[in-house]
């Protein structure tokens, strides 16, 4: 190859690089509000809302979708480190990570906006919707108390029942209590219909189901005392919680392979009428609709074992947005979020995406299944708002214990003993670590 050819190649590459680099970062217009999110199924309606907002106010909101969630988290993490977060961004990580963002000055405190005009904005939303974004006085994360995010929807976990399959087994109404529920599972088993399905191959669903029953059997105070370490898992009330799984197993009503089933497969089973009951989150309305629009089902709280304490289910703000503390258009960003959580926009979001609205006033204008779900919002709780949380290793031991009960390998009493032993081990470990830290100080 002669020097002329080499020169031509280098020249072509040089020109190519210039052309490609022509479209490099354009400075963001100071009037625009940039919003990042990962909610693929809500992108269209968010774009539509941004368009409407521009029509009404003249403010340009650019909605940018980055999915799936884990890739989105990477992008947000990288942007946060480079101090290049957008004006509004969706929260997707744990409360601890959220707290880190707040402490490092990436999230604006929205408390004053929520409390303006006699707390009008705050009052329009479900109180539980804000819990995930709220930090109280003396919170364990060391964050200044306040509200740091805006929920655009809420979720909760309930029991779903297939009306047609229950009718086949001779039941017109869902069960009123746990004993009746077990009776129904047995009746369904007799006519060859799998009774109950859930994604119990995923630890969090078992954790959720068991903590619902723990609240119902022993009340919130005793559950918290257990998490703190004051009440052992060998307490008779905790054995009763494990008994819930044993009774369900003994009824023969659990779907085959339930302890290894991911929630996606459990959702398919219920949507395709291969199980009469399912334990799932409110997002299932959309999932079931896509798989089987003709599915006829109802929503209920898990049937209680005890009538002394209320049944508390997991639920909180579903998807939330935060405002970048460094944003140059912070006021505009907050105004858009306020507008997006108003009644009319919330009803549109709920109808289009089949998620529960975070605005309680929008409930009247949404499909009935969704409003049935929202009716239980006052009975919700969530580990992120508890004063104490269980050690993850104990939670895992608990989960494995439940699996052993369902497999018939262990009794509730044995599992309770094993979980308590693990709890004790972890308490002692934490003590050792704290002692070491104190000595180092």
């Amino acid at each position, binding site marked *: *190859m002669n020097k002329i050819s080499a020169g031509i190649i280098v020249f072509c590459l040089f020109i190519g690089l210039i052309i490609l680099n022509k*479209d490099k970062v354009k400075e963001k217009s100071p009037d625009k509000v940039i919003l990042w999110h990962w909610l*693929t199924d809500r992108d269209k309606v968010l774009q539509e809302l941004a368009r409407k907002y521009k029509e009404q106010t003249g403010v340009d909101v650019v909605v940018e979708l980055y999915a799936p969630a884990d890739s989105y988290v990477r992008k947000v993490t*990288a942007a946060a480190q480079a101090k290049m977060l957008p004006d509004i961004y969706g929260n997707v990580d744990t409360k601890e990570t959220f707290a880190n963002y707040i402490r490092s000055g990436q999230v604006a405190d929205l408390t004053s906006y929520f409390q303006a005009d006699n707390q009008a904005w705050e009052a329009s939303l479900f109180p539980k919707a804000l819990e995930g974004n709220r930090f109280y006085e003396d919170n364990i994360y060391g964050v200044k108390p306040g509200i740091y995010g805006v929920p655009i929807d809420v979720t909760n976990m309930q029991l779903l029942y297939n009306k047609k399959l229950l009718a086949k087994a001779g039941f017109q109404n869902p069960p009123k209590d746990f004993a009746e529920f077990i009776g129904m599972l047995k009746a369904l088993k007799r006519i060859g219909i799998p009774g109950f399905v859930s994604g119990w191959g995923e630890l969090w669903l078992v954790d959720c189901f068991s903590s619902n029953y723990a609240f119902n059997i022993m009340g919130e105070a005793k559950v918290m005392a257990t998490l703190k370490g004051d009440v052992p898992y060998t307490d008779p009330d905790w054995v009763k919680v494990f008994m819930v799984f044993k009774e369900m197993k003994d009824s023969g009503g659990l779907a085959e392979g339930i302890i290894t089933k991911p929630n996606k497969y459990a959702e398919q089973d219920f949507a395709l009428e291969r199980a009469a009951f399912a334990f799932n989150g409110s997002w299932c309305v959309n999932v079931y609709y896509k798989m089987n*629009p003709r599915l006829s089902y109802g929503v209920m709280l898990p049937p209680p074992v005890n009538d002394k304490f209320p049944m508390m289910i997991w639920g909180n703000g579903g998807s939330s947005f935060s405002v970048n503390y460094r944003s140059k258009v912070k006021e505009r960003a907050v105004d858009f979020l306020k507008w997006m959580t108003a009644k009319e926009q919330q009803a549109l979001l709920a109808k289009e995406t089949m998620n529960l609205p975070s605005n309680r006033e929008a409930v009247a204008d949404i499909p009935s299944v969704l409003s049935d779900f929202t009716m239980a919002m006052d009975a919700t709780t969530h580990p992120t708002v508890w004063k104490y949380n269980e050690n993850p290793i104990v939670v895992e031991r608990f989960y494995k214990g439940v699996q052993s009960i369902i497999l018939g390998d262990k009794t509730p009493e044995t599992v309770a003993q094993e979980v308590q032993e693990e709890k004790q081990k972890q308490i002692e470990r934490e003590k050792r670590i704290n002692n070491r830290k104190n000595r180092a100080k």
Partner: protein
Amino acid sequence: MKTTNYRAINTFKSVALHSFLISVALSCLFPLIWMVRSSLMDPETIFTEKSLFPKAIRLVNYYNAWAEGNFGVYFLNSVLYTTAVVVGIVFISSLAAYAFSRLSFPGKNIFFYMFVGAMMIPLPGSFVPLYVLMSKLGLLNSRLGYILCMINVGLPLSILLLKTFFDKMPPDLEDAARIDGCGRLGIWWHVALPLARPALAVIVIFNSLNVWNEFILAMLLLNDKAKMPLQLGIMTFQGAHSVDYHLLMAGLTISSIPVILIYLAMQKHIIKGLASVGVVG
């Protein structure tokens, strides 16, 4: 008697081997067949119909996937990225590998091991520094930034492959070229590159697949929808909790066609390249 036994054993071995190979081939083909079959069905029947052949064929899924996934723009972007990155990798890696193989310069081995060592760093581990670097260079949200990053991702393996190839190239060929008046670049262009064609085919295939299927880095570095590659269009069918399987499968079928075509076009070279990486000249 012995001959009959020998034949029976041979037949048995052959049947067993072929059964095994057929089962492996079927297990590889099944996901592809399932993808095409699901792309032609409506969302309600995907999980209820057991047959591999849909009763009603819905070609409209392809149109919807193309339109809803904004595939027109993404497709062109992917073609641009794949072409630019592969050309860049072939150009740089062949020059670098030739230099590592034939030239003597201080720190040659250290540089080479640094390149090879770069293969050990998982991509997600470099996201944050990469993002900060690109933002400082003003290359964030630019096609050039993404292309340069992807070239960088593909270089280590390509250099390693080509260096191994050039190491085995007989020095006599270079001497002959030198007598004919070739300089270093001339030898690289007229002698080394033509001989390395099988290895280059492997590099082209591997890197084409890598760039065509990549989206994590694109999502990290690009913000404008108009600059995103095809894989990002496919992501739009995967919701947080629900998946539009019929559109997702149609999108996947569309996106896999170019890759299959590239593979079919270069099939001969890739097998030859893998088999003869140590035989040169």
